[in-house]
């Protein structure tokens, strides 16, 4: 252990072994660590044993409707962006029993069971992923009613963020102000520095818990040179986003143009498959159904992820409110980018690009927004000219 006085506002430099020690330390503190691993040719999140599980020397290449892994020239641990899954499923599981009840002698009893949650540590949380968690916090634990399961899991959660030093071709977190580096919400943040043989990491604590673990690592205070390099890399990532989105006027642009013909144009392409909602780290819609034992006496109410692309989603007696493809795509996109702001005082999009990458027909939320903006602006100019 170092004799350095370790504080929250200081950044330190560590080597690769310290990253391994960090994982060991988390294990010692009884955390189950979830982080990036390679499975089925994608980078997903699952339990991490040691740093050899990480996608070392791999990166992900994104385009609208396409994703593949590629070998890097170096052995970076965090040299990828985002795969199909976010950390969402750990706090907001795709399937969860929310209530159990039982019929006993004609009476219905609610069964109250005590269950405990696993203490989780999320490792390698990209800043957009971190912001997605902060956004879901607003929905599940910062509103009038709270989701107990989410809260329990969230309260014991430890977050290790890794700042991005390279942006992917479908990323636009600079536009959504959710990356490429994190300034809040983490327990520990890491920035990877790789230069020839020199493989180091800038590390800092964001919370007391983070500090406690940091103190167990072999640290040296980061040199000005290292700090400058890290800053430079993050800046370059920020300036080299594959995509961009003008977020300045989205509410007016989208909710003010609900009948814009461009929605029909998108509807011609959209398959209404709901992939975009399933991969999105902020989407929170759910359905609740009863699952009953054969006798009908025992019952569980099971909550599952739902998608605004299904017909049942908006069903009220007589039919779906959003029966057309167009209205369902419009619901999804206006929600992410506009209505979310009224509902939760934040954008519903963190610019991770997943909905673009995993859309089977490559529909691109940033391009569609630009198309509407362009047409609306052109129209406004035309009518201004007509008036003159």
């Amino acid at each position, binding site marked *: 252990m170092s004799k350095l006085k370790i504080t929250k506002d200081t950044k330190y430099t560590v080597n690769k072994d310290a990253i391994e020690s960090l994982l060991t330390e988390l294990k010692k503190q009884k955390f189950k660590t979830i982080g990036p691993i390679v499975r089925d040719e994608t980078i997903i999140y699952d339990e991490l044993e040691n740093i050899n599980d990480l996608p070392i020397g791999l990166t992900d290449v994104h385009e609208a409707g396409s994703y593949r892994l590629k070998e890097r020239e170096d052995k970076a641990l965090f040299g990828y962006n985002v795969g199909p899954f976010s950390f969402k499923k750990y706090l907001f599981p795709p399937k969860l029993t929310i*209530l159990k009840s039982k019929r006993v002698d004609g009476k219905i009893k609610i069964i109250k069971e*005590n269950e405990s949650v696993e203490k989780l540590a999320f490792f390698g949380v990209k800043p957009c992923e971190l912001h997605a968690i902060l956004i879901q916090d607003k929905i599940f634990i910062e*509103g009038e009613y709270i989701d107990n399961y989410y809260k*329990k899991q969230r309260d014991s959660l430890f977050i290790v963020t890794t700042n991005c030093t390279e942006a992917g071709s479908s990323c636009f977190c600079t536009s959504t102000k959710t990356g490429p580096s994190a300034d809040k919400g983490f327990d520990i943040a890491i920035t990877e520095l790789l230069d020839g043989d020199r493989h180091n990491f800038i590390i800092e604590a964001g919370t007391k818990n983070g500090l406690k673990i940091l103190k167990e690592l072999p640290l040296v205070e980061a040199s000005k040179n290292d700090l400058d390099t890290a800053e430079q890399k993050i800046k370059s990532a920020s300036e080299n986003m594959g995509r961009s989105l003008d977020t300045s006027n989205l509410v007016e642009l989208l909710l003010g143009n609900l009948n814009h013909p461009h929605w029909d144009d998108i509807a011609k392409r959209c398959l209404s498959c709901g992939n975009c909602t399933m991969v999105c780290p902020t989407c929170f819609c759910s*359905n609740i159904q009863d699952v009953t034992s054969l006798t*009908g006496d025992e019952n569980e109410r099971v909550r599952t992820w739902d998608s605004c692309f299904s017909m049942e989603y908006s069903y009220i007696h007589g039919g779906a409110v959003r029966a057309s493809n167009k209205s369902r795509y419009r619901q999804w996109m*206006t929600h992410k980018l506009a209505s979310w702001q009224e509902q939760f005082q934040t954008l519903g999009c963190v610019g991770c690009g997943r909905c673009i990458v995993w859309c089977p027909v490559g529909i691109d939320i940033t391009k569609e927004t630009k198309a509407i903006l362009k047409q609306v602006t052109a129209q406004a100019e035309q009518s201004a000219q007509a008036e003159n």
Partner: protein
Amino acid sequence: MTHLSNNKPVDTQITNAAFIPEMFVIKKIRKETEDTFTIELAAENGETSFEFLPGQFNMLYVHGCGEVPISICGDPNRPNKLFHTIRMVGDVTRAIRRLKVGDMLGVRGPYGKEWPIEKAEGKDIVIVAGGIGLAPLRPVVYHILNNREKYKRISILYGTRMPSDIIFNKELESLRGRFDIDLYVTVDRADQKWMGNVGVVTTLIKNSNFDPENTTAFLCGPEIMMRYTAIACQQQGLAPENIFVSLERNMKCGVGLCGHCQYTGKIICKDGPVFNYDTVKDLIKKREI
């Protein structure tokens, strides 16, 4: 107001506190029409005390079947009696109808924003209901009757498709007998016995007696009916800010967590179901929102 788990997580419990219903017992079932009925619910220990505001709703849960949002339709001054009037349209509402006196029904609530009855004091009141839409407005009628002196002229305009669809027959008859309330009932299609008005409920607006400068209107019914009624009210000089409507969307949780009842920036279960017409008038014109 809300008496269930409002921001109070149950610490030892994962089972979602916000989703735990309280079990009630069915005390009475009254048939209103062929497809509509009213139930009275009582707390399991017999000591019912269910406070609510007019316009709020409960999530009613049938064990092993499902849960649906249903407005509370009793007298807000009598929290010892919990009433719901329900139209059978599908699985859960039919399952509720199959329950018998003594059977149990889960209740979560009350949820949602109420009709602004206190702000409407000192004014003329126009209540316009279509079909089952009279149920969410019945607590308003009770409140007004309990506080008659606080309001000026009261008009209740009620329309159904056919005479056989009229609910709360007895209560309507007794209201008709009062000199301090104007009640008009109309049907879209008459049968041979019907001697009353025929025509959609919007046609009644122009004949009713209110001071447009000093009136609050409460509308509940199918969206299209509320939209045309609001237009008719405005034609009589009523400002959109003085008109209130109750909106309906698919709801799974009733507490703003499931996403189903979004209406652009609004989440109907918690921001509504009652809305000031002025804030939704542009949306209500659009399709598939």
